[in-house]
Structure formats: structure tokens, C-alpha cells
């Protein structure tokens, strides 16, 4: 596993966690608000663990997470989208978890035991997220709005994975392969998010301790 691929995973989890935390306080029902916020927090926790692995035990994970320029972020366009309705949000959640499971399965076989171990640890927590996502998918799969949202996000979901893993996602999701919106470019929606996400660190005087 290359550093760039690990960074992609961490950036995906950070940005998705950030996006999903935008539902805190305004999710459709109180119970889901708690569950969704908890999932968002977990994703950011996974990002932190991967950043820490990348910078080493004594390195500064926050610096890697927040001190890069916009163009240096490796997150997939799927996680950047500012989704304002629940059908799209759940469609992305389900597509993301399905793709993430495939990615983590490959990572668990990584030659580097530190990478494989962390992937296994993350996957044990993702099991709860998959349970949550599958439950919503089961509930909404025949609803027109949900199906449209899945179809709209499908090229983005496909683009989240490297080419060699896309076939498995096609099989699992059951939609035809399309031209993916691949990683490596950013949507216009990342810039305002980056601005918000890094604002506090950028405004702090050099050497500030947290």
C-alpha cells in the first residue's frame, strides 16, 4: 500500500466525517441524529489513526490533516459533496460503506503488518456503520427518491476505488459500470469545506498549543 493510497483513505474519512457531522442537530429523527453523529465521529477517528500511522508515533497528525493546501488533499469527489437532503445522504452513506468494505478487505491483506492491523481495527468499527447503512438501504431501496439519489451518486462511488477494485463494487451494488468521477480532481464544494475545516488552525499564531 502506497502512502498516497493511505492518505486517500484518511482524507476520505476526514471529509466524509466532516460532511456527515453537518447533520448533527437536524437529522430527521432524534435517534438517527445521535447515531449519525456517532458515525461521523468514528470516521474522523479513523482518519486520525491513519494520519498518525503516516506521520509516525511522534509526528503531528493534526498538521497532516489540516495544514495542507487544498490541491494536496486526496479525498474522492464522492465525500466532498454538500448533500442537503436525506435520500442523497443515505445513498452516499450506503455506497461509501459498500466501497469502503472492499477497500478495507484489500488493506487487511497488506504486507505491512501496521497497515493490515489498523485496517482490521477500522473494519471492526465499520461493521456497525454497515449495519446502519444496510438497514436504511433495506428500508428505502424501493423508494423513487432514494433510487434516483443512488443513480446520481453512482459514478462518484465508483471513482472512490482504484480501477482494480471497481468490478467488485459493480457486482455488489448491482448497477452497470459507468464512467467514474475519479479521485484526483476536486469538486467546487471542497474549497468552502477546506476553508471552514482549517480556519481555526490558520488563524492561530505560530506555535500555539492546543
Amino acid at each position, binding site marked *: 500500500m502506497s502512502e498516497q493510497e493511505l492518505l486517500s483513505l484518511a482524507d476520505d474519512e476526514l471529509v466524509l466525517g466532516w460532511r456527515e457531522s453537518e447533520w448533527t442537530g437536524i437529522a430527521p429523527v432524534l*435517534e438517527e441524529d445521535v447515531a449519525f453523529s456517532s458515525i461521523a465521529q468514528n470516521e474522523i477517528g479513523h482518519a486520525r489513526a491513519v494520519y498518525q500511522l503516516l506521520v509516525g508515533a511522534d509526528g503531528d497528525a493534526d498538521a497532516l490533516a489540516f495544514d495542507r493546501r487544498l490541491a494536496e488533499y486526496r479525498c474522492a469527489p464522492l465525500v466532498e459533496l454538500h448533500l442537503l437532503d436525506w435520500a442523497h445522504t443515505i445513498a452516499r452513506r450506503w455506497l461509501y460503506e459498500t466501497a469502503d468494505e472492499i477497500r478495507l478487505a484489500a488493506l487487511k491483506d497488506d504486507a505491512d503488518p501496521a497497515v493490515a492491523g489498523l485496517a482490521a481495527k477500522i473494519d471492526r468499527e465499520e461493521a456497525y456503520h454497515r449495519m446502519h447503512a444496510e438497514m436504511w438501504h433495506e428500508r428505502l431501496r424501493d423508494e423513487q427518491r432514494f433510487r434516483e439519489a443512488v443513480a446520481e451518486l453512482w459514478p462518484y462511488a465508483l471513482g472512490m476505488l482504484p480501477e482494480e477494485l471497481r468490478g467488485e463494487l459493480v457486482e455488489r451494488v448491482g448497477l452497470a459500470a459507468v464512467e467514474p468521477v475519479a479521485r484526483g480532481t476536486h469538486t467546487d464544494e471542497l474549497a468552502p469545506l477546506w476553508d471552514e475545516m482549517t480556519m481555526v488552525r490558520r488563524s492561530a499564531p505560530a506555535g500555539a498549543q492546543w
Partner: protein
Amino acid sequence: MSDVFEVFRQERRGQPFEHAGSVVAPDADFAEVWAREQYGRRGESVALWLVPRGAIRDVEEWADEFDLKYRRVDGYSIKARLKEARERAGTA
């Protein structure tokens, strides 16, 4: 349609389940996922019971027309008798 599910949680194996609160959910699957997040994800429970509120039989009428207070725990003062017994046994 949503139902209220009462949530009981067990803190450690072998301990009794105690009422923790409730979740409002459209079915038992949603109730499980939501209850896991609210009552189990921070290591505070080893097991949960989810009970639809409709399945609970509510009992709150208690007849005690003849004031048989010796049948109640507050009807029998053990303190004085215990003191007496201890004095008799010389262990007071």
C-alpha cells in the same frame, strides 16, 4: 408508524438488566441500531433488551384495605429487637 421500544441494559455479565431509557423506531431493526448507538457504543453495556412498550403489562393498583402493616417492610421495626437480642447475647 413508529413504536416506542424500552431499552434495558446489562452493565456486566451476570448482573441484572436495568431500564436505561427508550428509543422511538419504525421497527425492531431500527430500534437495535439506534439503541446500540445510544446505550452501548461507549462500553457502558455488555447486552441490551429491547421491548416494544405495547408488550409491557403495567401493574400499579395495590389493595391494602385492612392495613395489614405487618406484611409490609415498614410495618416491622427490627432495630429495637436487634438491640435487645445483641444485649442478651452479650455482643452489643
